C-alpha cells in the first residue's frame, strides 16, 4: 500500500496581544481563512507574548498571525520574535495586520516579521501570501 498524499491543512494561529479589544479584523480574517480551508487556532483577546508562543508550539501551527490596533506593534513584534528564538521556534513565520503606519513596515520586517497587512488589503491577497509562506516552511 502506498502512502496517501498528505492532506494536512495550513494551520494558522490568530491572536491579539495586549489589552486592545478591537477584534473585528482578527475575526474577519479567522473566518475568511476558515472559508479558504485553513485550520485557524483563535486564542482570543488579551494574550501575552508567552501565551501566544506556547499556543503556537503546542498546536504546531504553520504561521502566527498577530492583529494589533493599539500602536504597540513594534514592541510586540520584537518581544514575540525574541521569544520564538528562545524556544527554538523561529522557523514559524510571523505576520501582522491592523492599524500599522506604512512607515513602520520596514522596521517590522527588519525585526523579522514576514508580512504586514494594512486595513484595506484584499483578503485574497492575504490568503495567497500565507499559502506562499506555508509552502516555504520546511515541514
Amino acid at each position: 500500500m502506498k502512502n496517501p498524499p498528505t492532506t494536512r491543512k495550513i494551520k494558522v494561529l490568530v491572536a491579539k496581544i495586549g489589552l486592545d479589544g478591537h477584534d473585528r479584523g482578527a475575526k474577519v480574517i479567522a473566518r475568511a481563512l476558515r472559508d479558504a480551508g485553513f485550520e485557524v487556532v483563535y486564542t482570543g483577546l488579551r494574550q501575552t507574548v508567552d501565551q501566544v508562543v506556547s499556543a503556537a508550539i503546542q498546536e504546531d501551527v504553520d504561521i502566527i498571525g498577530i492583529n494589533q490596533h493599539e500602536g504597540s506593534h513594534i514592541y510586540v513584534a520584537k518581544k514575540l520574535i525574541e521569544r520564538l528564538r528562545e524556544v527554538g521556534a523561529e522557523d514559524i513565520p510571523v505576520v501582522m495586520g491592523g492599524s500599522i503606519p506604512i512607515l513602520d513596515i520596514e522596521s517590522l520586517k527588519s525585526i523579522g516579521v514576514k508580512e504586514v497587512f494594512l486595513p484595506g488589503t484584499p483578503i485574497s491577497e492575504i490568503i495567497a501570501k500565507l499559502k506562499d509562506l506555508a509552502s516555504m516552511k520546511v515541514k
Partner: protein
Amino acid sequence: MKREDIVNFIERAERGDKRALGRLLSVLEDLSLETAWIVEYLASKSGRAHIIGITGIPGSGKSTLISRIIKALRGKGYSVAVVSIDPTSPYSSGSILGDRLRMQEHATDPGVFIRSVTTKGLFGGLSLAALAIIEAFDAMGYDKVIVETVGVGQGETDIMHVADTIVVITMPGAGDDIQALKAGVLEIGDIYVVNKSDKPEASKTYEYMLFVAEKGEVGRGGGWNPIVVKTSATLGLGIRELTEALDKHLSYLIESGEKEKRLVSRRAHMIKLIALKILLESLNSVVEIESSNIMEAVKSMKGFYEEALRIAMLSGKRISDLISI
C-alpha cells in the same frame, strides 16, 4: 517525513521538549502509514494516565470549567494534557479551533499541554488522530489527559470506549436537555456536574440529577453510582469537590480492576479505527481502479473486509506488521 526525524521528535518529546511533542502530534494527525509504528511505540510506554472525558450540553460552560479543573489538578501536582475537539465547519474544509481560548491562561504552564483536534472521525465519532494523540500524551507521562468533546452526536458514545472517567456537564433549567440526557445522549457519565450553580434553579436541577443517579438511570453500571457535583465555573465554586470526585473514581477504577479493562477497551477501539482506515483507503483505491468491473471490485472488497476484521481482532503490539502489507 523521514523516520529519523520522527524518532528525533519522539526522543526530544520524551525529554520534555514541547516543540518536539507538538510536531509529533502533527505527524499523528496526518495519519500517514508512519502512524502505526509510532502508535505501537507509544503504546509500549503508555497506560498509566487517567483519561478524563468531559462532555456537556452546549452553553453549559464546559471550557471555563475545564480551565478551572486544570488549575485544581495542577494544584494537586498533576501534569495535565488536554485534547480539545472542535467541530469542523460544515461549509468548508477549514475550521476555527476556538475552544482553547478559554484555557489560554494555562498555555504557559510547563505542566500543561493543550492541543486542539479538528479532524472528524469516521462516522462523526472520535478520530483516530484524537486517539493517537491521547496515546502520545499518556506515553509522555501526563498524569491526567482531558478529552473535551462536543456534547452531541457520535462522539459521546465513542468517548465511552476511550475515557477512564466520563464527566457530563449540565446546567440549571436545562429541562429539555435533561430529557435528551435521559434519552441516551449523555447518559454515560461517571460524574455529573451541575454548572452555573449560582443560578436560582440550580438546586432543583441538582436534586433531580441526584435522583436519577441514585436510581441508576444514568451511569455506566458496574459497582459505581455516579457522583453529582454542583459547580460555578465563573466564581470557582465546587471545583475542589469535583477534583475529589475524579480522584475517588480513579481509586474505584484501580481497585475494581476496571482501569485495566478500560485501557484494553481504548486500545481495541484504536485498533478498530486503524483497521477501518486501512479498509476504507483500500476500498477507495479498488473502486477507483476497478470501477469498470463491478464484480471484480466487490470481490476485492470482500477480501479487504476480511483482512480488516482480522486486524481488528489483533493486539496493538502487531499494528505495524499489519499496516505494512
